[in-house]
């Protein structure tokens, strides 16, 4: 059997979160009634002229710098001509031969733990098109032009990824960097991040690229990975059956888990690019780039390195903390109030992340201040709460927004550490478990754990396990 390798390149369309659209003052926002965020520029009415939003340039440069790209000193816009009802002017203002950024890269960590560089071929600015909805019943489609003119940054990689997993890792890394920059909310569900994939296979050792298929219509990173996995298999089967892969666009069908060929166009696309005469060229000075460089936040890779060193975090802990900008911020707030950062990590990576998952929330929307978490941890340190009960207390704190002290008082959850009360419990247990008690007396220390467990059960987790253990030993020795 032949051995194949996979070659993947990705195109990401990123909506930039400026207040207004790229070429007019209409609000750049999502979720409005159809056709309520348009103007003559959006609708391509005669006599209207586009004017470039300065903030879009800044955001584009920011993203380009974070992706280690070279920023062009002169940029211009071009018209990409095609006919489609979501494009009222019958051309999209885009960038053809002078993109804002090129020749960058980002690093991903592969499954084997090694780093790999994924090169960015180019990133260019363009305007988004409108949104079409197709009613299955009627014989027409409906167009909403609110999205026209939404600023987009299209980020194109080199064909550097050699597995669906690497493509997935690249997207995660890209998204994380962009979220740190605060230039986009990167929400695939809202369409603010969209991704098409080019994929081909070739026999191992072959240097020429195989014929690629372009995959569209994937609505999540997971869908992209699954679609690519399907496509690898499909292309291998085509080649092994003696046929050739044809260059085409294929749509991912999430219900059937297959890619489906779009009817191939009879005529090849000819976008007839030419310079956009309505927009003058723009210069980007070295000073401008330097100024923007100064505003760049600490990016994930830098933060990972700093947090690991400064707080002596394990690689595992640091990676989870850095995987979300607001989580990293929360961690550092806690670390300022409390020295034992390992304990903070255990709480964040354990209970808090699982609460976030259950509640489908982000840490910034969660009812929890850094001070409240630290107070809770201190209650465990001080023996007021057992670890187990503390987790319940956290849940109640998140439900009510109250701090640990009031929750413990109101619910009577404080740990029982009072000797006389605990001794009573131990006495009862010894009576109920004579056999075990005798074993302990005879020196079988491991049986102590069983009685401690019984004590916790009896007190619904409120007994101080350490003290219970001590009392059992004392009583039975």
């Amino acid at each position, binding site marked *: 059997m032949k051995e194949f390798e996979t070659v993947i390149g990705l195109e990401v369309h990123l909506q930039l979160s400026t*207040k207004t659209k790229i070429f007019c003052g209409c609000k750049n926002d999502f979720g409005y009634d159809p056709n309520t965020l*348009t103007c003559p520029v959006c*609708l391509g009415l005669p006599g209207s002229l586009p004017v*470039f*939003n300065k903030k879009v340039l800044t955001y584009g440069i920011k993203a380009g710098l974070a992706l280690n790209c070279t920023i062009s000193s002169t940029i211009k816009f071009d018209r990409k001509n095609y006919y489609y009802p979501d494009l009222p002017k019958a051309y999209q203002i885009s960038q053809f031969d002078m993109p804002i950024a090129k020749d960058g890269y980002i690093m991903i960590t592969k499954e084997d733990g090694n780093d790999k560089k994924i090169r960015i071929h180019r990133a260019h600015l363009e305007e988004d098109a409108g949104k079409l909805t197709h009613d299955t019943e009627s014989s027409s*489609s409906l167009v*909403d*032009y609110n999205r026209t003119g939404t600023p987009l940054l299209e980020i194109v990689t080199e064909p550097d990824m050699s597995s669906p997993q690497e493509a997935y890792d690249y997207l995660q890394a890209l998204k994380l960097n962009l979220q740190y920059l605060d230039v986009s909310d990167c929400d695939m569900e809202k369409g603010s991040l969209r991704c098409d994939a080019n994929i081909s296979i070739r026999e191992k050792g072959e240097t020429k690229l195989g014929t690629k298929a372009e995959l569209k219509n994937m609505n999540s990173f997971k869908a992209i990975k699954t679609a690519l996995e399907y496509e690898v298999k499909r292309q291998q089967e085509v080649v092994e059956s003696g046929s050739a892969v044809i260059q085409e666009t294929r*749509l991912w069908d999430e219900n059937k888990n297959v890619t489906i060929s779009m009817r191939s166009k009879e005529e090849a696309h000819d976008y007839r690019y030419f310079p956009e005469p309505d927009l003058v*060229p723009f210069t980007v000075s070295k000073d401008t780039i330097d100024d923007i460089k100064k505003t760049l936040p600490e990016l994930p890779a830098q933060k990972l390195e700093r947090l690991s060193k400064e707080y002596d975090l394990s690689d595992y802990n640091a990676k989870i903390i850095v995987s979300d900008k607001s989580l990293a911020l929360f961690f550092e707030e806690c670390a300022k109030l409390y020295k034992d950062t390992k304990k903070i990590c255990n709480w964040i990576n354990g209970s808090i992340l699982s609460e976030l998952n259950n509640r489908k929330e982000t840490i910034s929307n969660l009812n929890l201040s850094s001070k409240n978490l630290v107070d809770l941890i201190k209650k465990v340190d001080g023996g007021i709460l057992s670890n187990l009960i503390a987790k319940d207390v956290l849940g109640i704190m998140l439900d009510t927004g109250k701090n640990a002290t009031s929750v413990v008082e109101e619910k009577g959850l404080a740990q029982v550490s009072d000797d006389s009360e605990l001794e009573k419990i131990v006495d009862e247990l010894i009576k109920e478990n004579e056999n075990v008690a005798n074993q302990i007396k005879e020196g079988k220390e491991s049986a102590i754990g069983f009685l401690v467990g019984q004590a916790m059960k009896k007190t619904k987790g409120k007994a101080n396990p350490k003290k219970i253990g001590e009392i059992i030993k004392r009583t039975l020795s």
Partner: protein
Amino acid sequence: MISKENVKQVASLSRIHLKDEEIEFLAKDLEKILDYIKKLEKLDISSVEPTSHALPTKDVFREDVVKPSLSQKDALKITQNKEKGSFKVPKIIE
């Protein structure tokens, strides 16, 4: 040589309907234009910057400030084909 087929393809890309006699005429016309371009191609322009814009202006920006948009009613005034606040077009299936 510009063939009738060439003209038909360009017309279809541009969504223009042409009559037969127009196709014939345009094939000749385009031929003349291309001949002229060939003449231009002979010029040495290696020292000339490409002119993408006729005016010597640069860097005309807008600040990121929201301006009022058209109402849905006004936006839809430019069409007779509307439904549910949207522009209605012949069904598009990819």
